[in-house]
Structures are given as C-alpha cells and as structure tokens.
C-alpha cells in the first residue's frame, strides 16, 4: 500500500493548533440531548481559550443531527461549515478537515463539536438490516471479535493478551476523577471472567456507551499564541483508507494501511522516541493491538508480549496510553475525547494522571480509515 509521501515535507506541520478544549460529564442525561450537550462542551471550550461564539467562523459538527440547527442554537454564522459522519474515525478526519480549512484561510477559528446521547436513547450498535443480518452477524464488536480470533490463530495470541490493555486503561480511569469508571478498579482475572458478548470478546473488551460531548477550538498556530491557554500544535497527520471488503471484517487487521501511516513521524518531524504518550482509538481492546502493530511499536503478532508487563500503563510503562481511561474505562466519545486528552497532557492539565514532561503525544485510529496524528507543545 502506498504511504502518504514520506520524503516530502508536510506543508501543515505545526501550522495549526488546538486552542480550546471542552468536555462535558459523561453518563446518562435524559434531561438534555446531543444539542444541549454540544452547547455545553462548546461553551467550556470557548471559555477555555477566551473566545465568543461570534468569533467562530468555521464549524464542524459530528453526531449532532443537524449542523444548521446547532449553528442556529449557538448563534454562529460561519464561512465554513459541515456535518461529518457519526463513525468515530471521523474525529480524526474532522481534525484534518479543520486543519486544511485553517491553513487555506477558509476560516480563522474552527469550532469542532461532537455530541452523543447514545445512552439515554438506548443506542444499539448492532441489529437492524444489513448485508449479513440474516446470518445474525451484526455490530462493530463482532467484527473485532472475528478479527481477533483470526489474529489468535495466525500469531498465537490469546484473549488473555487483551487483559493488560483493559486493566491499564481502568487504572488510568481510577486516576481520573471525571472518568465514568473512576473508583472501580479491575484485575486481569476480572477481565478473564467478564461475561462473553461475542466470543472471543467479553464485556471488559467493549467500550462504554454514554451521553456526553466534546468540543475543540482549532486555529492557526499564530493566532493561538494570542489566546488564553498554551497552544498545542498539530505537528503531523497521516491517513490511508482501505475499503476492500468493507461489508465483512477485513482480512488484514488493517496492517498495510496502518503501516502506511507511519509516515506521520516524517510529516511531524518528530521521531517515535520523542513521544511520551499515546491516545489509541479503543472501541474494543483488539483495536489497540492492531494499532500498536500497525504503527510498528512491536512486530506484527507480538502485541500480546508488548503490552504484558504494563507497557501502556502510567508509572510502569514506556507508553502510557489513554490516560483518561479511554473508550474502555472513561467513555466512548469516539476519538474526540481521546484527542482532547492528548491536548490536556500537553498542557499539564492532567493532575494525578499527568505524564511527566509530556512534550509530544501520538493518536492512532485503526479502522478502514487508518490514521495517526502527532501533537506537540508549542515551544
């Protein structure tokens, strides 16, 4: 698979910044909806960077049903506006769209707002009509279960290999007072004994569906310097899609397309050793393994060995990952919350879960739109 160009410099390197971040509480909030939650997150993000709704001239809305209604509610009349698809891979895609809009001058301050009321409307991931529903095949979890069973066969990995992923992220949730699973530690045995959902995956391999919202304010690096908080720069971004066999589980663990996104290091001008922590899209625990292998943190098939001794856990491992608790132990905010956490790490906002001396963070999303981004502190 062709990588995005490695040798040519990425023109957007360090040109665009995260200026404001807002996240709501996550839980069950039937008294509001994705619009209400989105407004709450956006107001926190605006307050964070010191801007007003009238300053926003670019708007990307995700999972909130209507961009025009959201813009109407917030009183925003932008020059650049769109609604992105609800799949979580679109958090990274939305970030890249905003970066391009800012770099090209289509907007000066882009608000990106994700709102989800999946818990209170009892959103089901699975069921409904699809190509494979007559055979009972449904849900993203089943697709990952199918892939992980194959991975176990090809490489000798096991279900137990996923345990250190689940326990590391739960450990982080216990350090994060805002995490949904704060105060509820789990052991490897708990992971092993959790109830089967779609074998080989079990309950503690699945993300947590909640209501909540996340907003980011992005602007040019230059403008961000004049705002309230220290800017966090988008140093590099790489993406490779693979839609072959989109309707059935992929037969390659997205390895070729994820490998192609290793160009993110060249694009950012930052090597892997200069990164202190990771944000990995963890809709299911195997996605973390596919991400680590695809980006070359370990050889293909060796992710079980790689994570076994707490490599992903803050305080014990070289690669603290999803320090908020991630989708598995904080909340499934579809990558939006994970990227927000990367920004917070780079502003030293993380309290007990702060990665010491975090200078650069890497985001990875293993899906049919494989992506990786590197964020860093502005000098």
């Amino acid at each position, binding site marked *: 698979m062709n990588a995005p160009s490695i040798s040519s410099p990425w023109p957007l390197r360090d040109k665009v910044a995260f200026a404001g971040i807002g996240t709501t509480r996550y839980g069950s909030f039937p008294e509001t909806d994705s619009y209400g939650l989105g407004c709450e997150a956006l107001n926190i993000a605006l307050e964070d960077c010191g801007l007003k709704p009238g300053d926003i001239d670019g708007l990307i809305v995700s999972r909130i049903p209507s961009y025009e209604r959201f813009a109407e509610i917030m009183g925003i009349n932008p020059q650049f506006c769109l609604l992105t698809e609800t799949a979580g891979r679109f958090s990274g895609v939305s970030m890249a769209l905003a970066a391009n809009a800012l770099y090209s001058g289509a907007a000066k301050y882009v608000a990106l707002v994700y709102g989800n009321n999946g818990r209170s409307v009892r959103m089901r991931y699975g069921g409904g009509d699809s190509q494979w529903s007559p055979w009972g095949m449904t849900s993203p979890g089943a697709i990952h279960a*199918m892939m992980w069973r194959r991975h176990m066969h090809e490489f000798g990995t096991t279900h137990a290999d996923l345990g250190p992923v689940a326990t590391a992220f739960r450990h982080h949730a216990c350090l994060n007072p805002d995490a949904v699973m704060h105060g509820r530690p789990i052991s490897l045995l708990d992971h092993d004994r959790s109830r089967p959902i779609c074998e080989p995956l079990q309950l503690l391999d699945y993300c947590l569906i909640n209501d909540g919202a996340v907003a980011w304010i992005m602007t040019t690096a230059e403008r961000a310097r004049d705002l309230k908080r220290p800017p966090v720069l988008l140093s590099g971004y790489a993406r490779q899609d693979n839609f072959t066999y989109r309707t059935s589980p992929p037969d390659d663990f997205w390895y070729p397309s994820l490998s192609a996104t290793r160009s993110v290091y060249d694009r950012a001008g930052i090597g892997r050793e200069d990164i202190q922590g990771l944000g990995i899209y963890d809709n299911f625990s195997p996605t973390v393994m596919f991400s680590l292998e695809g980006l070359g943190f370990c050889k293909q098939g060796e992710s079980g060995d790689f994570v076994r001794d707490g490599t992903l856990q803050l305080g014990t491992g070289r690669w603290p990952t999803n320090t908020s608790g991630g989708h598995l132990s904080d909340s499934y905010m579809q990558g939006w919350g994970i990227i927000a956490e990367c920004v917070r790490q780079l502003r030293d906002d993380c309290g007990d879960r702060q990665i010491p001396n975090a200078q650069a963070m890497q985001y990875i999303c293993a899906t049919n739109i494989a992506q990786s981004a590197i964020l860093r502190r502005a000098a």
Partner: protein
Amino acid sequence: MSLENRPKPVIDNWNRPFFEAAKNDKLLVQKCRDTGQCFFPPAPVSPFTGRPHWDWIEASGKGELWSFVVFYQSYFEGMKDELPYPVGMVKLAEGPFMLTNLWDMSPDEAVIGMKLSVRFPGGPGDLVLPQFGPEE
C-alpha cells in the same frame, strides 16, 4: 433453532439473483470478465476494474473457515432461541469471503482452516440462507 425466524435479507437489484438461486440450492457469485476474479456481496461493477463486465457463476460451495465468533448478546428478536449462535467467515474456493452460520456442527468443533461446504436448509418466508458445515 429455526431459520424461519431469521431477519429477512434486504433484497436489491444486485443481490436478487443470489437469493433466487439459493432457493434452488445454488450458490452464486459474480465473476469479473476482465480479470477472472470473483467477488461478493453482489455489486453493479467489478471492484477489480470498476466496470460492469461480469457474469454470475455457480460457486463450488466449498471453502475454508477463515474465522468465527459466537454471539451471546441478543441483537435480533427472532434469533433469541438460537443464542449462543456461531457466525463463521468462510473464504470460498473462488476467493470471496462469505459470512454464514456453522451448520451440522457445534462451535466447539470449529477449527480455523477447516474445510467447509454449503447447505441450503431454509430461511425466512420462501427465502433460503446458505449455511456452511463440515465438507460433505
């Protein structure tokens, strides 16, 4: 377990011949005229060329088990009494993957790489859902 209670497939212009053939115990896939490669699910053009140059062919009905899962969670009302039920991903001898159920065997007997063949035991209404079991 009863295939009669299964969710009905969404029949469209491209997959209609597949489901019609299944009623007559035939497994159809599309074959690209230019490359000779087969593809599934049914589509208006060959994914290998992007062109509408293809023919339906009757597949051998043989394949091997690429991977499988066992559902414990209920997603379909009509399949509640089948829980826990297996879904297998079969690589057909002709190349394409097909998601199906494992028939005439328990999930405990499933081994990745085992040879499987198709059966046509029934489905919802007058439709038939191809199933795969140990090679006959």
